């Protein structure tokens, strides 16, 4: 959270993303945006609304429905002096562009012995419970997180989103920046003046002593909600947001678990072979001798996301389910 309240203003996460892009585009003529319906439409989610007015269609480029193609074009542009922000509307479409992300962008620096680089941001989305069904609701951060050479950012607040996106754009490496579609309307305080946030530093969203809740993206709010309920029954939860799955701030996570001796890792991706597995095993290893209970994981249920609201809402961890798990883990009744 911002250190000072002297010049804060309250904006939505959507605005924070927008502002980060606008500021970076103003600062650096090499930054441009490419994706479907990014210009006049400002994306279907309107997050980019207005950017084309300021920066023109040369720098806010409406692409055909060619994710593999424009992702690859982005990488080529990044290798030759530009700093593209490639807009992949739904995170589910990562399946179309993993070659450009994982085989090209992630590896070109290494494969060239450090001579080439790909400073590119792939902006995409995650999150279910929008009644968008199985192909428009996934949270696939585990895929890029697996690939060395990439950084992966999962902002959870307007403050984080703005500061991290600016850093992502300035980073000389490919960064996959994943926004929760339901978080865009979350409001939060953001400094008036310019700031950036480092990639690779976890943020302690709430200090606590009894249990560590490590939560990413959409799950940060859920964990904070659970923490409030837990406080009522006398359990003080520490809520930590890694903010980037790569680089992962292992030390902050491990230190917290050592302190509380209990941890739950919560992420909206599928639980199997998901982000929770890495983080849980990092903690289980690093804090082994301090832990009073197994590290628990809460991911999305291992099912394609169903359309029906009656089913969909059951697939994702909630404040209530996190509360229950934490209570059990703490041995409270």
């Amino acid at each position, binding site marked *: 959270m911002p250190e000072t309240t002297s010049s804060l203003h309250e904006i939505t996460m959507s605005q924070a993303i927008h502002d980060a892009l606008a500021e970076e585009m103003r600062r650096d003529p090499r930054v441009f945006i490419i994706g479907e*319906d990014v210009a006049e439409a400002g994306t279907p989610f309107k997050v980019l609304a207005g950017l084309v007015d300021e920066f023109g269609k040369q720098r806010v480029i409406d692409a055909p*429905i060619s994710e593999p193609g424009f992702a690859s074009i982005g990488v080529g542009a990044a290798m030759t002096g530009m700093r593209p922000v490639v807009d992949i509307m739904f995170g*589910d479409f990562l399946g179309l562009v993993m070659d450009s992300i994982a085989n090209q962008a992630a590896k070109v620096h290494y494969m060239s012995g450090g001579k080439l680089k790909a400073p590119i941001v792939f902006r995409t989305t995650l999150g279910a419970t929008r009644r968008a069904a199985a*192909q428009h609701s996934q949270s696939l951060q585990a895929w890029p997180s697996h690939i060395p050479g990439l950084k992966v950012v999962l902002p959870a607040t307007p403050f984080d989103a703005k500061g991290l996106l600016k850093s992502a754009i300035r980073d000389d490496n490919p960064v996959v920046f994943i926004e929760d579609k339901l978080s865009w309307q979350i409001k939060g305080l953001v400094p008036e003046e310019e700031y950036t946030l480092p990639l690779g530093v976890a943020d302690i969203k709430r200090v606590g002593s009894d249990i560590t809740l490590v939560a990413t993206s959409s799950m940060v709010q859920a964990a904070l909600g659970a923490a409030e309920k837990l406080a009522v029954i006398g359990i003080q939860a520490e809520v930590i947001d890694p903010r980037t799955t790569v680089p992962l701030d292992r030390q902050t996570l491990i230190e917290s678990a050592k302190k509380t001796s209990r941890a739950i890792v919560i992420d909206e991706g599928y639980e199997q072979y998901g982000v929770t597995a890495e983080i849980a095993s990092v903690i289980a290893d690093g804090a082994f001798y301090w832990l009073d209970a197994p590290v628990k994981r809460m991911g999305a249920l291992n099912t394609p996301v169903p359309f029906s609201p009656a089913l969909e809402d059951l697939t994702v961890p909630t404040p209530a389910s996190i509360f229950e798990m934490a209570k059990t883990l703490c041995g409270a009744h």
Partner: protein
Amino acid sequence: MNHPNPLDLEQGLHFYEQMLKIRLFEEQVNQLYLTAKMPGLAHLYAGEEAIAVGVCETLRKNDYITSTHRGHGHCLAKGAAVDRMFAELLGKSAGYCRGKGGSMHIADPESGNLGANAIVGAGAGLATGAGLSIKLRASNQVAVAFFGEGAMGQGLVYEALNMASLWQLPVVYVCENNHYTEYTAFREVLAGELRDRPAAFQVPSKEVDGQDVRAVYNAVLPLVERARRGEGPAFLICDTYRYYGHHVGDINRAYYRPKQEEEHWRTARDPLQICAQWLRGEYAVPPALLDEIGQRVADEIRLGLEFAMQAPFPTPSELMEDIYA
């Protein structure tokens, strides 16, 4: 090509009824959205009915189709029932997919419908696979892929065309050019002419007025029959227009699409009116007969919706079913 052959009257009336069913269905869906009775969004097919109906009327029940995010029309035209369609859109157990698929995934193997798809272009690949399957099984089915002109941005479509052409697969690709891909005019994202694309892969193509159901039917019939005879794939480009927004929530659209243009298509190019016109003019169908159809379809929609509204939601125990076969 755009010169329709005469149909018999019964067939003409059936076309009209099928198109009207789609129209009223979609208008009802829009109402469900506007009155907050439907979860999520839907992409309405209103305005494009002549394509789904004209094409599906040339198909047999066991012929396959693959559909898109804008799929209700294809499903209905291929034989899906209104009640279970509504049930699916409302996320009910009685829906075609037990409520698990929703608007963008309605599938009905009973009527040969391999499913709507939320990945633009994906259906073209799947239909090509169905074509290969047909060929390997030495069956005489045909597979039809419906997709928007926006799908021509996807490289997958060209890979599929190449293989369909190489292996002479019984696939008919139906490109519904409604002039917009979401909020962008297709000419801004498509270099050259649509018609040159299939030709480059030696897939014969035709262009047709997608608002005239007879024209569509007559254009696609020989392509389907050709495919059925094992003479290979074909491509049909249909000129059309969607009457509503990209999806039901896309209400203020003047910034990307002029009101007059919408007006023009709605008044001068409406597939229902065009069909009604020739039914009245060439077949001397009395207005009362069309009204009767209108009433029947309205009843079907009303009853279907009632069914769906009353149907139960799936129970939590259904959640983890159907993940593995």
